[in-house]
């Protein structure tokens, strides 16, 4: 116990003297959250749109008006030929091109189907999916309007009412900010502890440590425990930014969130210390850490919904601590659910923590060769 405390105190002294790292612990959540919170918008609005209206009629203007009014299309450019539409999209000045044929108005009035061409730059699937969906939707609604007015019936036959729960306005920030908190914590924690053992190995201080009676588990604990404090500082800064800047409503219990966060911090620290035990140099540790970060970001459900992933990828996602923490933090912040719903996730994180620290302890030998 005294030896754990000795390592712990030493780590605190070293952290305190390392102004750069300390600054990063505070600044990272602040800057990153502000940056990503505003930048990451899964909902794409204001898509630059070019129009080539050969009909120049009240009907074409009416439909165009619906496109603009949706908020998804910014119809700012009008051109006079197909070539120009192509050029605008090729050059990237427009992502969407809308072309009305000369007989558009006649067809509407005659009751035959009036074709409108919508070109979409699908090289960015996020933008094109949205544009295609919205364009189809506008077409449907407008057709329905015209049909119902012609048939003189009061209402459309179906009336499907969707109620989006937890985030009724679909504010991306509500969904993303808690997740970014998780990313930040795992990134910092893994990064910090991944240097832990390997730095001492490179500097030669480990050789002196090895001749002392310290036990491997004491060293591992002494090297991870101090960082729990830093993890909590980070999550606090991140949540404060989320609440104050992005107005994320925290529906569940903050106390519960803080308690459950402990397991995520220890799992991340354990992962970091494991990296530190595997790597021979700080450079290798850095590379290994990156090897962990990318899957964490892409497969945990942070970027893409996990439901749509192929089975194998889905299971790989199960091996990432962040996956479980996203359930916890999104659950508590957005849904306001509590521990009883999250027990599985908590157990998983606990298992990760124990396994990572145990392997680290077993792998650490008080020998040079």
């Amino acid at each position, binding site marked *: 116990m*005294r030896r754990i405390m000795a390592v712990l105190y030493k780590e605190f*002294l070293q952290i305190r003297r*390392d102004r750069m790292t300390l600054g990063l612990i505070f600044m990272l959540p602040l800057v990153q959250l502000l940056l990503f919170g505003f930048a990451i918008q899964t909902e794409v609005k204001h898509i630059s749109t070019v129009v080539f209206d050969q009909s120049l009629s009240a009907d074409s203007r009416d439909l165009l008006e619906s496109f603009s009014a949706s908020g998804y299309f910014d119809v700012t450019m009008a051109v006079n030929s197909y070539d120009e539409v192509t050029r605008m999209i090729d050059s990237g000045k427009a992502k969407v091109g809308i072309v009305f044929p000369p007989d558009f108005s006649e067809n509407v009035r005659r009751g035959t189907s009036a074709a409108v061409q919508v070109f979409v730059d699908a090289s960015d699937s996020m933008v094109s999916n949205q544009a295609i969906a919205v364009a189809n939707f506008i077409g449907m609604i407008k057709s329905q309007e015209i049909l119902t007015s012609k048939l003189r019936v009061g209402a459309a036959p179906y009336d499907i009412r969707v109620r989006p729960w937890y985030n009724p306005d679909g504010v991306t920030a509500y969904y993303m900010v808690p997740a970014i908190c998780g990313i930040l914590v795992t990134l910092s924690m893994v990064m910090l502890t991944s240097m832990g053992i390997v730095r001492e190995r490179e*500097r030669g201080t480990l050789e002196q*440590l090895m001749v*002392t009676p310290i036990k491997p588990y004491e060293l591992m604990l002494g090297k991870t425990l101090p960082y729990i404090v830093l993890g909590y500082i980070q999550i606090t800064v991140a949540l404060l930014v989320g609440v104050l800047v992005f107005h994320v409503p925290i529906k569940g219990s903050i106390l519960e969130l803080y308690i459950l966060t402990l397991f995520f911090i220890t799992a991340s620290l354990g992962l970091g210390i494991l990296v530190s035990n595997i790597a021979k140099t700080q450079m290798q540790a850095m590379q290994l850490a990156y090897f962990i970060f990318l899957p964490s970001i892409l497969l945990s459900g942070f970027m893409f919904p996990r439901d749509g992933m192929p089975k194998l990828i889905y299971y790989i996602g199960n091996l990432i601590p962040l996956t479980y923490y996203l359930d916890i933090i999104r659950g508590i912040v957005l849904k306001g659910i509590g521990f009883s719903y999250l027990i599985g996730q908590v157990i998983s994180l606990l298992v990760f923590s124990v396994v990572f620290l145990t392997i680290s302890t077993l792998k650490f030998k008080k020998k040079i*060769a």
Partner: protein
Amino acid sequence: MIKITELSKAFGSIGAVHEINLEIKKQEIIGIVGPDGAGKTTLLRMVCGLITPDHGQVLVMGKAPDRMEEEKDKLGYMPQRFSLYGDLTVSENINFFGSLYSLDKKTIQDRADEILGLTNLIAFKNRLADNLSGGMKQKLSLTCALVTRPDILVLDEPTYGVDPESRKEFWKILYRLNKEGKTILLSTPYMDEAELCMKVAFMDNGRIVSVDSPANMREKFSYTVLELKSSIKNSHVLRDIPGVIDAYFYGDSYHIVTPKDRDNLQFIEAALNERNIEVFKLEEIAPSIEDVFVSLAEKEVV
């Protein structure tokens, strides 16, 4: 105190240490002397239990060093590289290592003050270790190795890269510790330090070639050494003279090794004149420990 028997260790195909036998008695100062790559560090690390030997064994006070978890405080080790925390102060480093041996704060404090007084580091107690000079860093390492009051000190090239003045001071401290009863096993690449040890083990190519006191080593040296000051540029011409066993550059002169039983001085002088070699000075000198080592090392090579 330490008994090494048939100790061997190889790294891959490179043999680092071959079948070493060595016994270190209580209150001895024994120096492992030898060129870089001779295997000194590997040997000392095996004594401390940091490297598992391939064959043979080390017994420190009757125990294998990696089995003496609870008696780790009996052995103080100072690695070759500075192995303390540069971002901790002198006293924080001592406190840290002291607490790893479960010493209480008061004991550490008392001992630290005592040793820091001895090593003249007391004024630098609150300085970061990174900001100490090379010599002071070595003294701090020694202090940390001493905090448990070990019976045995294992020091790996403790004066390497340290200025001559600090080296002298460091040795004074070692003598004092020795007088108080400590057994000291150290390695050094400096031949002049070998003279300061009670016993010297000359190590070359992973083997201990000879173990004896420096005086005995010189005594047993069965050659005459001549010192030559001359304008010649290398020692090849000297080696070609019949009767010369070896010749090499030494400081600002050459040493010529010849058999003891002949009237060498005249013979060599004549040979030098014959070869038109300018002689500023030529005289017989007492062999230094380095002369002994040079001859030992060359025997090994042959």
